[in-house]
């Protein structure tokens, strides 16, 4: 049967609601599967920990670097929220500055994380705890790196004027990913740094 065109009263518009944008769902799905990845990592940590005579085998990890680092990462989420709300108002400069601060905070986080690794008196091959500690924080390290690469790309595109107040899905998705990486760190921090203090008796 041959097709007949039905004339439209006016040209069809692009979606304005995120639930009609495939890209938004794509990021939601990516975050869901990545969150599961960390859930299984932490499951492994607690599964092996529950069977160990003493967990962790050494004293609980120090908070001296990890706590300030956690705060740095939280602040980086706040600066990104500030930047993104600028984008929504069409203030490109505010977005560019806010994202630049976020990227810097992210890099500082990674550097402090390297310092933290350097100060450990065990390595990934010392024992199962070491394997878990370095693998879980290492996976998170890799995710922060990916988040930074995404932010850097969006930053360059923002400078080139690719986004507008009404059209900036890439900005939105990148922010979502960055906040996700932060929330994952809170879970990792709670599991690796806080829970041992709840039950650890020397």
């Amino acid at each position: 049967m041959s097709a007949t065109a039905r004339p439209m009263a006016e040209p069809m518009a692009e979606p304005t609601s995120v639930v009609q944008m495939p890209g938004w769902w794509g990021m939601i799905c990516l975050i869901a599967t990545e969150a599961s990845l960390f859930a299984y990592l932490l499951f492994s940590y607690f599964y092996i920990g529950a069977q160990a005579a003493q967990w962790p085998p050494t004293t609980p990890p120090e908070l001296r670097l990890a706590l300030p680092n956690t705060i740095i990462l939280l602040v980086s989420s706040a600066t990104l929220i500030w930047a993104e709300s600028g984008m929504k108002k069409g203030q490109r400069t505010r977005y560019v500055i806010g994202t630049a601060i976020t990227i810097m905070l992210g890099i500082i986080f990674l550097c402090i994380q390297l310092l933290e690794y350097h100060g450990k008196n065990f390595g990934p091959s010392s024992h199962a705890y070491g394997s878990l500690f370095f693998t879980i924080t290492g996976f998170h390290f890799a995710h922060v790196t990916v988040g930074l690469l995404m932010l850097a790309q969006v930053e360059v595109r923002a400078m080139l004027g690719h986004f507008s107040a009404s059209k900036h899905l890439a900005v939105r998705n990148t922010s979502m990913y960055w906040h996700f990486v932060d929330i994952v760190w809170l879970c990792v921090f709670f599991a690796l740094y806080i829970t041992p203090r709840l039950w650890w008796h020397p």
Partner: protein
Amino acid sequence: MATIAERLHEEWTTPHTLYGTLATVDHKTIGKRYLVTAFVFLLLGGLEAALMRAQLARPNQHLLTPEMYDQLFTMHGTTMIFWYAAPILSGFSNYLWPLMLGSRDMAFPRLNAVSYWIFLFSGIFLYTSLFMGQMPDRGWFAYAPLTELQYSPALNMDFYSLGLIFLSISTTVGAINFIATALTLRAPGMSINRLPVMIWSTLTISTAVLFAMPSLSVALAFLFFDRHLGMHFFQAAQGGSPLLWQHLFWIFGHPWVYIVVLPGMGMISMIIPTFCRRPLAGYTYVVLATVLTGILGFGVWVHHMFATGLPILALSFFSAVSLTIVIPSGVSVFAWLATLWGSRPLLRTPMLFALGFIALFVIGGISGVMTAAVPFDWQLNDTYFIVAHIHYVLIGINVFPVLGAFYYWLPKMTGRMLSERLGKWNFWVMFIGFNVAFFPMHIAGLLGMPRRVYTYPSGMGWDTTNLISSLGAYLFAVGVLLFIVNYFWSRRHGETAGDNPWDAASLEWSVSSPPPEYNFAVIPTVRSRDPLWEDRLGTPARSSIYSGPVLEAGRETTSTRPLDADDVRVLNMPEDSLWPLIVALALLVIFYGLLLGGWWVALAGAIVLFIAISGWLWPTDVTAEKEATS
């Protein structure tokens, strides 16, 4: 009005050049590539099985050495479960989804292309092991600590761990694509209660992939770290736990069973109504049963671990949940039977496969219920009874629906009908061959024959059943060959199919066979669950299939709201692109680098990967966006 078709053809066609071949993002081309590649893996896995059945046909045979036999059963399981069973379903879904949904492509056409390339390259990566004589050899579920470096020093299990991580990227991005497509790219009016059941089943399993796949990836990463970075996840002496592997593997593994069978059940729910000439009975219940099975699938993994010495309370819980799966499965079976009841089904080849499937599903289901009971499982764990069960489930609920689906949808893809006579031979040879091959394995298992033995002494009572199984296996293989013959025969001599050869109800049958590049000349508007049967069923609401908006300013399709499919908007779809191929090639370099310890090679691959992804995400039409900004 021919000009609509001409203009759309101009916009959507991919040139028949080398560039076009490598850069195409057409879901139909990608779907066909998936089908062919996965079918080749089916043949490879089948060849491996044929060698094993030759060895086991008689007692005390030495055609194969134990080492070769280990590699064959591992590669047979790995190939069939990972590189055939799920990808073949992705092939059908990739081809059919946009046509069923009234869309012009998948939500992410380039992601679709990368998903195929990664599937292909990961398969090539896995089979490189054949040429190095180091195929994976510790079973498809690869229990630690046997897979650790001290017990498996060569590259065998590295091919396994890296190959599967590589493939999991393809599976995951594919699942994301299906979810985004189902939620945003439906034709106006196709609310969720009007979705074809096959869409529901693939949507369910795509969601399951998101939550299940990472568990396998974590386990495989741990294994790789244990082997190459000296870590201790699975080594009890250093505080690790071999059982952790089993937990992680089966937390993934059982949902995976549903991932490779639910879409098959969805296909059956499309085929049976067509040949019964009436809508599926209990649509809502079948959909709910499908989703419920997908969810319950996450709560049964320990039934693979009944013999590992876990606390009896845990076993009872997992046994109970495993038995619960009977309820949604029963709902589906009774819905199919109710659709058949009192109808006059046309027994064409796709319908024969559907009916054969129901029989095998019930047998595989019953042996599943039996092994869900802990004491029974203890008796039969690691025997041929389990081998019989897994094959009734996977061949019964995957291969039979897939063959039925080929007979049903190949005319849409090629424009030619397959031979009905050869098709009936095909079905009966496969159905009889299958049962002759696998039913006796139940008996061999009950008589105590362990799985994965490379040979057995005579006088154990296993000789006859094994000989019968081997003969049945070859008969089954003849059945598969008949299908291949039928396919090539039909390409040349098959009757012309026409738009709707089966007089079916769903949207894919409203377009020509094969469909044009742009699928739909006008975007259809859907008003009922069976848009092409509204006259027959006397449905008061009428869909508008051949009249609607054209959308021809570039590659465009519509986007609607996830639940009600209203608020029609327009989406711009991407052009053909080489980036997906480059991304997949970069990943291939990374994985070969990791395999052979070339860390710098892997790093170079990662840099290319980053550049390729940046190029991919960079908008092609920056000027237009800049104008929109100002």
